[in-house]
């Protein structure tokens, strides 16, 4: 129920004043620095570990630089190493079809995001701009859906997906969230309602139908919230673990999060293959970091509240 509005975040730096040193300010900046450190250090540690050998990690656990700089961890995670070589390096030697999992994750997240946002936008348009009987009642019903925690619907949804014989398919993973989430509908409706009617009326006068208005006026005018919502939805579905874990059993439908947990479970007798595991972790996280980097400014300034109380 929270997230994303596109109110601009207040005018920065209204208080230039004199910046004389104050103890409080210094303490506050120190606190901020500490927070940044705790936030970012684990990322560096992933990289450092991924570039080390397992033997090096054991011999030199405190070295801030990679111990025995190597890319063998990445080769193992990407399945570029032969089984014998992997075992010799402290890996499990089990096949890890990384590119397949990556493709599966991309397919599932794209399918969910594309369909969910589009269908939710259509519904939001009907709720915000079309006139029909029972509109507010139906909308109230959708809102009530917000109250049901996702987790409650997982078990029955699994039973349903099984009955539909979609277990262990990508479609089975995507289906439950592909059509809508109450939040997406609610959120987009808020924005559509704020689009000035005059714009729509002008288009009507030009002879545009309501369908054309939806595609040519409403969607483009709401592009910022739609993009923000899409990126957040993409990240959420990319990171989902519980539902894919239930539905997928084999490589054919395995997504990255589940694959990572499997990789972790295949602990070789010599101990966990930390180097390979961290390399795999980094590769799994990288696409989201990239996606975020592209839209960061927009997302960061638009996380906020929609008017739900």
């Amino acid at each position, binding site marked *: 129920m*929270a997230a994303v509005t596109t109110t601009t975040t207040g005018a920065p730096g209204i208080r230039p004043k004199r910046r004389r040193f104050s103890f409080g300010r210094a303490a506050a900046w120190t606190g901020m620095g500490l927070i940044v450190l705790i936030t970012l250090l684990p990322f560096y540690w992933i990289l450092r570990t991924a570039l080390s050998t397992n033997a090096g990690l054991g011999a030199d656990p405190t070295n801030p630089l990679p111990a025995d700089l190597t890319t063998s961890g990445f080769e193992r995670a990407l399945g570029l190493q032969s089984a014998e070589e992997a075992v010799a390096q402290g890996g499990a030697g089990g096949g890890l079809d990384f590119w397949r999992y990556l493709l599966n994750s991309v397919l599932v997240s794209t399918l969910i995001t594309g369909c969910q946002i589009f269908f939710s936008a259509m519904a939001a348009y009907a709720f915000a701009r079309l006139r029909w009987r029972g509109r507010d009642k139906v909308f109230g019903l959708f809102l009530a859906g917000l*109250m049901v925690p996702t987790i409650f619907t997982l078990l029955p949804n699994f039973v349903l997906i099984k009955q539909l014989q979609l277990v262990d398919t990508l479609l089975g993973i995507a289906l439950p969230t592909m059509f809508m989430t109450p939040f997406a509908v609610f959120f987009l409706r808020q924005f559509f309602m704020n689009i000035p009617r005059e714009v729509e009326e002008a288009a009507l006068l030009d002879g545009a139908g309501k369908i054309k208005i939806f595609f040519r006026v409403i969607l483009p005018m709401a592009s910022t919230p739609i993009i923000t919502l899409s990126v957040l939805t993409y990240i959420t579905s990319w990171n989902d673990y519980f539902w894919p874990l239930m539905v997928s059993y084999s490589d054919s439908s395995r997504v990255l999060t589940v694959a990572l947990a499997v990789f972790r479970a295949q602990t070789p007798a010599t101990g966990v293959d930390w180097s390979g595991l961290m390399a795999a972790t980094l590769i799994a996280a990288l696409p989201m970091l990239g996606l975020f980097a592209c839209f960061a400014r927009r997302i960061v300034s638009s996380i906020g509240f929609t008017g739900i109380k």
Partner: protein
Amino acid sequence: MTVASSSPPSRLPLTGAEPLVPTKGAKARARGDGALAAVFIAPAMLGFLVFLCWPTIRGIWLSFTRFNLLTPAEWVGLDNYIRMVNDPIFWSSLGVTVEYVVINIGVQTVSALAIAVLLQRLTQSSLLRGIVLTPYLMSNVVAGLVWLWILDTQLGIGNEIITAIGFDRIPFLADETWAIPTIALINVWRHVGYTALLLFAGLQAIPNDMYEAAKVDGASEWRMFWRITMPLLRPVLAVVLIMTVIGSFQVFDTVAVTTAGGPANATNVLQYYIYGSAFGRFQFGYASAMSVALLVVLSAITVLQYRLTRAGQSDLG
């Protein structure tokens, strides 16, 4: 819950002008867009009914049955609930979950508030806000694995630092008392930035003049925080709390990849126990009954919190 902004004002503009649009059956549309609305709403409605409404009803129904996926569900009345009440593991799971939620929400809310206030009063830098948000981009699985490594008893850098300072190694995730707080803090690491940005957005709504005026009166930052920030942030804080508590109760991923419920059920949170009952022992009926219990707990908490914090009202006229 109600929606803040009501439905669009019924100005019904230009209805008289509609005949100007000659083609598409103007007479049919003068009254409303029923047919078009039906088309626009159909996909979302399908998803709503099939994957949200129906599962909710079915989940409640399944909780009154014995069901193992292979044979049809068999009605057993309240058996699952009676079993649940007498199941010590259920109660310990609930206890562990509550412990997790208290630590997770407690630490997260305070830290998020601190970060939000620092971001607001110190700097408006969107780079800093971006940095704070990065852990949220990781999956719980990734966050769990990274910290599993950092906190590893033998090789983890965390324990190396602890021994360097002169303490004994702590088996963070392998020890019954440490495991739950550790998992709770791992999830704070992942979620605190997002929570902070939500609160930050709430802070932006507080007019800057209030701080200026208070400063003129000689108020300290600390006093301004308690006298201005907290009272005016309260509605936002309440909504964030309700949201995060509900999310927190559903903890699963981190437990699954770090401790798998162990040691000795010490981290067997409710959702993990439900998953094990359904997919490990194929007791879907029993698992559903526990899900219903969780649903009831969550609803009760939502109502209670909403009442306690008077979430609906804002002091900011």
